[in-house]
């Protein structure tokens, strides 16, 4: 079964500083995407960033970037210049798209990030 592990249940950071959220995953796929979703208190699921596994270059989206280590199956999220609005639960997700599956996302347990003023 697909597993996604986020080892940090909670993190905190001062406004304007940088924080890194870790994630490891397990997949038998060779070509896949990985995702980070943000869930603010409103409980919406908002896509933050995605990484294509066949691309060596780490994905970047404004203040958000990833450190993707394919061999280690590690996919961490770096948030630079943290803002109060970044306070949320962050989920790492990996698709289980093997065989006849049309794909389902397996989510990690989530990391609660609190940005302090």
């Amino acid at each position: 079964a697909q597993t996604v592990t986020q080892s940090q249940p909670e993190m905190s950071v001062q406004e304007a500083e940088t924080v890194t959220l870790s994630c490891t995953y397990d997949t038998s796929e060779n070509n896949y995407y990985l995702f980070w979703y943000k869930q603010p208190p409103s409980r919406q699921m908002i896509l933050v960033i995605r990484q294509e596994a066949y691309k060596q270059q780490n994905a970047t989206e404004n203040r958000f970037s990833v450190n993707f280590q394919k061999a280690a199956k590690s996919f961490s999220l770096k948030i630079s210049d943290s803002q109060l609005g970044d306070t949320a639960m962050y989920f790492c997700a990996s698709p289980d798209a093997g065989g006849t599956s049309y794909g389902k996302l397996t989510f990690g347990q989530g990391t609660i990030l609190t940005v302090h003023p």
Partner: protein
Amino acid sequence: EPEVTQTPSHQVTQMGQEVILRCVPISNHLYFYWYRQILGQKVEFLVSFYNNEISEKSEIFDDQFSVERPDGSNFTLKIRSTKLEDSAMYFCASSPQKLGNSPLHFGNGTRLTVT
């Protein structure tokens, strides 16, 4: 930007009652999903739907659950006889392609409370 819309945003029902959660996926998407999140826990896959049939379902998706795409735009999740443990946030999602090649677009969720 097109969105996945879900109604209602909050549904309260009594144990044993049937509920139908409604979703309108993004119009050119072909793959549809339901996920749920019990408060404080991670998001869990329930079911995927493609070409007018269920393509995959999880252990959670037992005989009490069913999905339907009755009219080519709506995508519904029915729970026949709700239990207290069905209380959760239910997310509908859609994707234009098989998930490995594109992200899921989530709706804002329906909070189901079973009393």
